[in-house]
């Protein structure tokens, strides 16, 4: 039981991170119908920016941790959002209205470019980071087995819940959210109502990148080490989460993220840690074969 609860906590933590990244995939797919393969690398950049910010704060002798974390979060979110915006602007927007595969190829190119760009600037070696938030509480203990939840895990899960609630509100109730959904359903009609479609699409990338930056910060704190390649695996897993939830569905992305996190945690715990990445990939293959529209996805026919 303790072991099970422990995996549940680990899985929810991982799932939070995947879910935040998955939202970016699903939103972009919803609005322009493409898989943004560079999104995982945007998340990687978010992780690097938070490490760099932390190191810079350290060098100038800034050691008040709570404030340092907030500064890391803000800087990483703002700069990563700027990267997201730029990628859309230079790699996707010029291809709008061209053949369907063009932006996909451009996205793969962008992904490779971003990885090499970070490798060149930051070096190929791992970037370690000392633990910033330590400690935790023992939830259960029996026969030497414990279920332990670190403060960091609490921060990750709570912050994710807050962000997802805020984000759901944005999409459901604000005029930006409505404009976004309108562009998803009929871009031309949206423009006939005075919606600046290009700007709305840009904002979609900005929001997706900002959420990925938060995930990047979380992963940095959680694992304490990052490299320029982390975007690839996390990207595929988050993409799997988006597909599992139903690509285009935002609630689906959140749900899919949590499920992938749980599957990965339980798989590692009860089968094999070495092949933990296999779990997500198997899910991807199975979903694509048996339910390509995902759990909450809408069948294509409904697209008017």
């Amino acid at each position, binding site marked *: 039981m303790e072991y099970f609860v422990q995996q549940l906590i680990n899985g929810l933590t991982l799932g939070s991170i995947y879910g935040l990244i998955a939202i970016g995939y699903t939103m972009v797919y919803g609005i322009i119908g493409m898989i943004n393969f560079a999104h995982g690398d945007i998340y990687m950049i978010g992780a690097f920016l938070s490490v760099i910010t932390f190191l810079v704060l350290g060098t100038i002798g800034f050691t008040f941790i709570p404030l340092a974390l907030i500064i890391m979060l803000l800087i990483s979110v703002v700069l990563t959002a700027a990267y997201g915006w730029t990628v859309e602007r230079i790699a996707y927007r010029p291809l709008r209205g061209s053949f369907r595969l063009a932006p996909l190829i451009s996205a793969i190119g962008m992904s490779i470019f971003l990885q090499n760009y970070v490798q060149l600037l930051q070096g190929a070696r791992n970037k370690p980071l000392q633990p910033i938030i330590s400690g935790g509480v023992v939830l259960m203990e029996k026969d030497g087995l414990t279920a332990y939840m670190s403060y960091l895990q609490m921060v990750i899960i709570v912050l994710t819940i807050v962000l997802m609630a805020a984000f759901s509100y944005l999409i459901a109730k604000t*005029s930006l959210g*409505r*404009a976004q*959904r*309108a562009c998803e*359903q*009929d871009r*031309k*009609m*949206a*423009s*006939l*109502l*005075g*919606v*600046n*479609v290009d700007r709305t699409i840009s904002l979609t990338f900005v929001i997706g990148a900002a959420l990925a930056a938060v995930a990047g910060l979380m992963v940095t704190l959680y694992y304490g080490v990052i490299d320029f390649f982390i975007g690839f695996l996390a990207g595929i897993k988050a993409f799997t989460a988006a597909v599992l939830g139903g690509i285009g569905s935002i609630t689906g992305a959140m749900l899919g993220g949590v499920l992938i996190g749980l599957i990965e945690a339980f798989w590692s715990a009860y089968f094999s840690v070495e092949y933990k990445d296999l779990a997500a990939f198997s899910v991807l293959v199975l979903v694509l074969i048996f339910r390509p529209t995902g759990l909450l996805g*809408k069948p294509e026919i*409904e697209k*008017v």
Partner: protein
Amino acid sequence: MLSLTGIHTFYGHVEALRGVDLQVEPGRIVTLIGANGAGKSTLLMTICGSPAARRGRILLEGEDITRLPTFEIMRRGLAHAPEGRRIFPRMSVLENLQMGAITTDASHFNADLERVFALFPILQKRQSQRGGTLSGGEQQMLAIGRALMSRPRLLLLDEPSLGLAPLVVKQIFDVIREINEQQKVTVFLVEQNAYHALRLAHHGYVMVNGKITLSGTGRELLANAEVRSAYLEGGH
């Protein structure tokens, strides 16, 4: 209000509008009639800049809007209820109406909503229903209501009577007259239903193959032999 001179519009190499000149005077209802494929919808969409005219000039209240992007044009007191209605299918009726008001000041939203509900009481009942599940007539009412939510001075309507039962058609035409007379909205109406449209309109144009071939008051066109044989024969 609106003035078009020498408008040419292309789809690829196909020339859909071949030099259109046309005026819409403020406060009027002006109608454009013509056979299928004449270019009527293209003309309305060209006014909205989508597709943009390749040659010619479009003035809206004296301002040249020919080269502006669509969303900029639509923020200048112009609204369009386009062909096919284009209701957002996965948004509620209320959200569709909110989309109509997306560029306007939120402070008069409630008053505008009341006005639209007064014109089309059924929309109030259907408020939280998804747009895609409305009947054809309800969708048309929603399309007009959504266009009105932006407080337009000029309203473009593309075949609002298409596919509707006679009773609903009458209701829609009554509303168009009311919008024009009471809310002082200028209306530019494209119709297949030439008889009703010409009776309603102050002025009419006839389009054939991307060109205006005739124009006159509604009464004149109704009496015109060419118009009668091409668009009014077979009863109404």
